[in-house]
């Protein structure tokens, strides 16, 4: 038997298949375009794998059910799009606070509000960062292809388990609906060790010492889970020293494991004059532009694509800014991540946004046209 098999699949299917490969056995959701295929795929597959699929009454309930299932020891995922992502925010914050692993997929569509349900957009980048209230950390991935969707979903599930932290997968409608080749490893190959199986003798549900596994309810370890600030055993407290310590722990986890969370990729000239920074499906157009500009024309151009957008890969962007004079940031919105780029660049290069928000993709030509402003 070969180790991997090439399969033609849709982005949404790759997300569902990636989740299953990573051991997800619980899905709760509510139908919404352009994410519905994920639910349908799960409805088809999970019962046959002994897993649970449930269509809930709304997205609030879906998010709640996923958290409940995760506390029960199942790897759990939910998928939605803008309007549903808005509804999930309160309970997403709960999962962050209570440190319950789960993966939330938002296949972005054009907002605000009902917007254009079938049109691509990257309008939820800031919502994914700040959608739930409070000064919380969050991990957000943004794949550029079906292949990346498959592998980033697996990474999302595993990281979420390891760090006991929700992970958001921000898909673009274009990626969710396109069909591409994916190399699928055999079932189980990519699963991390199930850390929650081993309970350390002096286990505390919220240990300040570092990562601590979630021990599922029903295994004889009695503890409390709440969205209130809590002590190491989960009991509510408003004591100032504990409150700040809890919030610090949530953030520190992500800082400490930054190297495992941050996925970026650079292609192009070693000493670029113009660096492109982008994410999601826009990476595809940028790649096409770099092919032409650098590989054909030998222009000093490079592309830093961000698979992780939150926590923002500031070091990687700054490193690029030390080389380049110009940083071009194409996004399918009115300019969201460009602010972060500017902050990371710290004046070491000129940051130029390129925005499109008419429900169409940014094209390679549009990027070429920009590059020509600075290059021959």
């Amino acid at each position, binding site marked *: 038997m070969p180790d991997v098999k090439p399969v033609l699949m849709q982005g949404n299917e790759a997300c569902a298949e990636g989740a299953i490969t990573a051991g997800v056995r619980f899905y709760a959701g509510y139908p919404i375009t352009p994410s519905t295929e994920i639910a349908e795929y799960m409805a088809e597959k999970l*019962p046959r794998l002994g897993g649970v699929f449930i269509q809930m009454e709304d997205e609030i309930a879906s998010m709640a059910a996923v958290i409940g299932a995760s506390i029960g020891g199942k790897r759990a995922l939910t998928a939605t799009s803008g309007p549903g992502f808005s509804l999930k925010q309160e309970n997403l914050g709960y999962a962050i606070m209570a440190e319950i692993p789960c993966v939330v997929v938002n296949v972005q569509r054009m907002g605000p509000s009902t917007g254009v349900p079938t049109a691509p957009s990257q309008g939820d980048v800031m919502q994914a960062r700040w959608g739930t209230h409070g000064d919380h950390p969050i991990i957000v991935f943004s794949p550029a292809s079906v292949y990346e969707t498959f592998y980033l979903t697996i990474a999302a599930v595993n990281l979420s388990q390891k760090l006991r932290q929700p992970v958001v997968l921000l898909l673009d409608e274009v990626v969710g609906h396109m069909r591409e080749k994916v190399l699928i490893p055999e079932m189980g190959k990519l699963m991390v060790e199930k850390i929650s199986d081993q309970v350390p003798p002096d286990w505390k549900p919220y240990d300040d010492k570092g990562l601590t596994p979630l021990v599922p309810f029903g295994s004889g370890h009695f503890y409390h889970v709440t*969205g209130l600030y809590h002590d190491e055993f989960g009991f509510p407290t408003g004591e100032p020293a504990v409150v700040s310590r809890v919030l610090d722990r949530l953030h520190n986890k992500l800082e400490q494991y930054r190297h495992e969370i941050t996925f970026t990729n650079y292609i192009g000239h070693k000493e670029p004059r113009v660096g492109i920074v982008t994410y999601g499906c826009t990476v595809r157009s940028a790649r096409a532009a770099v092919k032409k500009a650098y590989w054909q024309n030998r222009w000093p151009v490079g592309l830093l694509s961000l698979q992780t957008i939150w926590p923002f890969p500031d070091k990687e962007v700054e490193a690029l800014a030390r080389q380049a004079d110009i940083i071009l940031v194409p996004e399918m919105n009115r300019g969201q991540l460009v602010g972060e780029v500017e902050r990371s660049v710290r004046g070491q290069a000129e940051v130029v946004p390129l925005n499109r928000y008419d429900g169409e993709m940014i094209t390679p030509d549009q990027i070429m046209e920009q590059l020509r402003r600075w290059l021959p």
Partner: protein
Amino acid sequence: MAPIEQLNLDFLRTKKLPHIWCPGCGNGIVTAALVRAIVRAGYDQRDVVIVSGIGCSSRAAGYLNFNTLHTTHGRALAFATGLKMARPQLKIFVIMGDGDCSAIGGNHFIHAARRNIDLNAVIINNYIYGMTGGQHSPLTPLGKKATTAPLGTLERPFELLELARGAGATFGARGIAAQPRQLEQLIARGAAHKGFSVIEALSPCPVAYGRRNKQGGAVEMLKAMKENAVSVERASNMDAQALAGKIITGVIFTREAPEFCELYYQLIEQESKKNSN
């Protein structure tokens, strides 16, 4: 009346006491009845989970020595649904306030009832939003005063158990904090019932409800509750006029219907057999 036996202290987090509730609050009585009901049901401590929403009543979860899950306002049943489906062997009790269950959580309530999922919902109905200081809830009786209905509410309240029955629940009972022994039995019967069980526990909130509606202190409220209570058996021999203003206690309805979680697991077992054949 026989004295109420000692509470099983293993099931209480005594170190977390004193509780946050006001003097005279009925939440403690209902919580104690729940503990005795769990003892009565004979469950293994490790199989019991308490899920709650947000409100004064929902704070009970923190005082109970099981796996306890204090969720978000109104969403307790949705969390519990996910948990039950992930671990069907768990015996889950869901504590909610009247506002938590019937206002913000109303949608989850009817859908849990519709699925007839094996959860035991214990609604502590004090007719008011206690935690936020006395705003009216969908269970505040018509004409009663609240901070957001200073002239008396104009909204007709839900009949909670009728709502549950209509939505598909298969067990509905009402008890009162003034009769904790009966309440305990009702919760235990609800727990023994397979399917979605709804236990409405009427409970005094002297601070945010009683005072504003001139019902006296906790003692007067409990007394009035007891005087107004009529068991279902007695009520069946009374006419509408005699029943006006009365609180009917006991098992209001019970019926058989397929339970969702069991159905689901049966289905996937069949599927796995099919696939292995």
